[in-house]
């Protein structure tokens, strides 16, 4: 067996492991919101997540994968020994996977995205040199880590304000919920499919013009709204509902909406986070595929995305139930009228980032969205230590991923050369 085959196998195994970890842990945050608000049972959440995570990874995961694969490192200094890039990418996967394992055991919340970006930047600086890092790109990724929670917070704020205006603060919130929820469902289908279509689905042989994208997104939006309207119509207000109990039924209407935002959230998560696992794999595959050359033009093999999507679903199926249950138990405060605003805002932000090829943290984006709902006076108590913890995670996870990947890089280099 030659080295290249070993590299390929290692990359496949590490990538699968990483995707498995993402499925087991990360997906929970995307789905728990819906479970916590009782819009979905855990079983339903897992099915929804499996389908839409996979769809997101496969249909819209290409851009971020490209960034992880060749956007962070400038391969020019590597033409002499492309092996280094292989070691580096393998080391990054190992480092991020190890770090996630350690952190999970300790119960620290960590971000997969930050681990892998930290790892890649780390090995590039030490293993190759400062000039190997495309600092401009890394800078814009880092900036997006601040921008994305803020943006999704703002969107969630606006969404929840609109819910207050149109539904909650009206004389007949139940009737208005039934009237407006299908509209929100339209928004979910329209926005998510539009952003996905914008970036094209060339890898599955679908090329669309701008107008066609709008048309299709519109049709998908109408379609989802119709399905939603069907379920919304079946919810009725019992005659004995009084002022105090009617909000239970209002929330039930929003619960229908939350099923759709949960799908969107899973899709968004798959589209962004799959890259954390398959980006490095794609880089290795690219070099091996071109016989050891650094072929910048090589396309992303579809099977790599499939591998990532499959890994996520496997992790979710094996381990996700418990994590979703635990996280879901803690967030019952997020009733469907709030949860959908948070989820839709986060999903839209994440999908936009996916389309632009920027790896961001889905969880941080969701936290930003929850804070946005809170600022709109939607949540009775938010614990702001979380914001500090997010800053801490930036400060700790990036160097941790970097240091580990440097260690692994030199280990691999020593073993294979």
């Amino acid at each position, binding site marked *: 067996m030659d080295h290249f085959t070993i590299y390929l196998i290692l990359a496949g195994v590490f990538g699968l492991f990483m995707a498995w970890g993402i499925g087991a842990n990360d997906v929970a945050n995307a789905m728990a919101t819906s479970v916590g608000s009782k819009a979905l049972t855990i079983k339903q959440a897992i099915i929804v997540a499996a389908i839409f995570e996979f769809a997101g990874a496969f249909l819209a995961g290409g851009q971020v994968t490209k960034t992880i694969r060749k956007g962070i490192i400038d391969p020019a200094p590597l033409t002499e020994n492309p092996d280094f890039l292989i070691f580096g990418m393998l080391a990054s996967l190992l480092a991020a996977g190890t770090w996630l394992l350690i952190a999970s055991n300790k119960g620290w919340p960590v971000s997969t995205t930050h681990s892998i970006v930290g790892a890649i930047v780390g090995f590039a600086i030490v293993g190759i040199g400062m000039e190997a890092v495309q600092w401009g790109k890394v800078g814009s990724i880092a900036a997006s880590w601040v921008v994305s929670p803020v943006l999704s917070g703002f969107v969630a704020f606006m969404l929840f304000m609109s819910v207050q205006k149109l539904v909650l603060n009206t004389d007949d919130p139940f009737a208005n919920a039934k009237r407006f929820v299908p509209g929100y469902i339209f928004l979910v289908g329209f926005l998510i499919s539009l952003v996905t279509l914008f970036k094209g689905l060339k890898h599955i042989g679908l090329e669309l013009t701008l107008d066609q994208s709008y048309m299709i997104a519109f049709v998908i939006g109408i379609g989802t709204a119709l399905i939603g309207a069907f379920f919304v119509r079946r919810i009725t207000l019992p005659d004995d509902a009084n002022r105090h109990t009617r909000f239970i039924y209002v929330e039930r209407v929003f619960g229908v909406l939350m099923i759709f935002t949960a799908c969107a959230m899973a899709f968004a998560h798959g589209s962004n986070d799959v890259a954390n696992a398959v980006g490095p794999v794609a880089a290795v595959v690219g070099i091996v595929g071109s016989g050891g050359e650094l072929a910048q033009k090589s396309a992303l093999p579809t099977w790599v995305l499939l591998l990532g999507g499959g890994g996520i679903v496997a992790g979710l199926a094996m381990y996700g139930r418990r994590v979703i249950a635990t996280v879901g138990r803690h967030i019952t405060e997020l009733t469907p009228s709030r949860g959908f605003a948070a989820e839709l805002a986060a999903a839209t932000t994440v999908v936009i980032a996916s389309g632009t090829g920027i790896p961001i943290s889905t969880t941080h984006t969701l936290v930003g969205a929850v804070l946005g709902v809170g600022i709109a*006076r939607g949540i009775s108590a938010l614990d702001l230590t979380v914001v500090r913890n997010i800053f801490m995670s930036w400060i700790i996870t990036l160097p941790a991923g970097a240091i580990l990947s440097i260690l692994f890089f030199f280990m691999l280099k020593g073993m294979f050369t």
Partner: protein
Amino acid sequence: MSGSYLTGIFGNSPVKPMQQHMDKVFACVSELIPFAEAVLANDLAAMSAAQEKIATLENEADDLKKELRLHLPNRLFMPVPRRDLLEVLTMQDYVANQAKDIAGLMLGREMKLPEVIANDYLQFVTRCVDACAQARRAINELDELFETGFGNNEIELIDDMLKELDAIERETDDIQVKIRSALFGVEKDLPPVDVMFYYRVIDWTGDLADRAQRVGSRLQLMLAR
């Protein structure tokens, strides 16, 4: 087990505990009616039993108050200022304290009310308890208020409730004036020390409605932005 930012971001909602505390306070205050009836019937055993109930309920309210305070650390971000919420809680607690003081004083002195004020006093207590019930009704709207994200409809509704509370409080003032003048008419024929304490009990009972009203005005301050 992975930690998650999402599990950490939600603080304990203060709404239900606030309402539970007010329920407890109201339960405590309403015991004043059987207590006053026992006073009127000169039934010392019944007085003592009712007083004990009041003291127990007041203690329980105290515990709820302490627990809620512990669950409202500084780092919480809430739709209403934390300080205002704690003010409302303190006001709620004062109502229960007052009930306990009244019962304690009357039982301690084994008080027998003079004929001329006895029935009016019972009505007086009942109306003061009504004032507390009205304050509780307003506090009961808190969950709708948070659910609607502080909608104007809800705030107006609470305003109306508080207007009603003000009306009840004014009514108790009128009853208080009436009782005092009745007592004034007969005070020369009564033991002076007893009379002193009659006046005090009347004052304190009136304060009950005042304090209920203050729960309302604190609530209003909390909602004003």
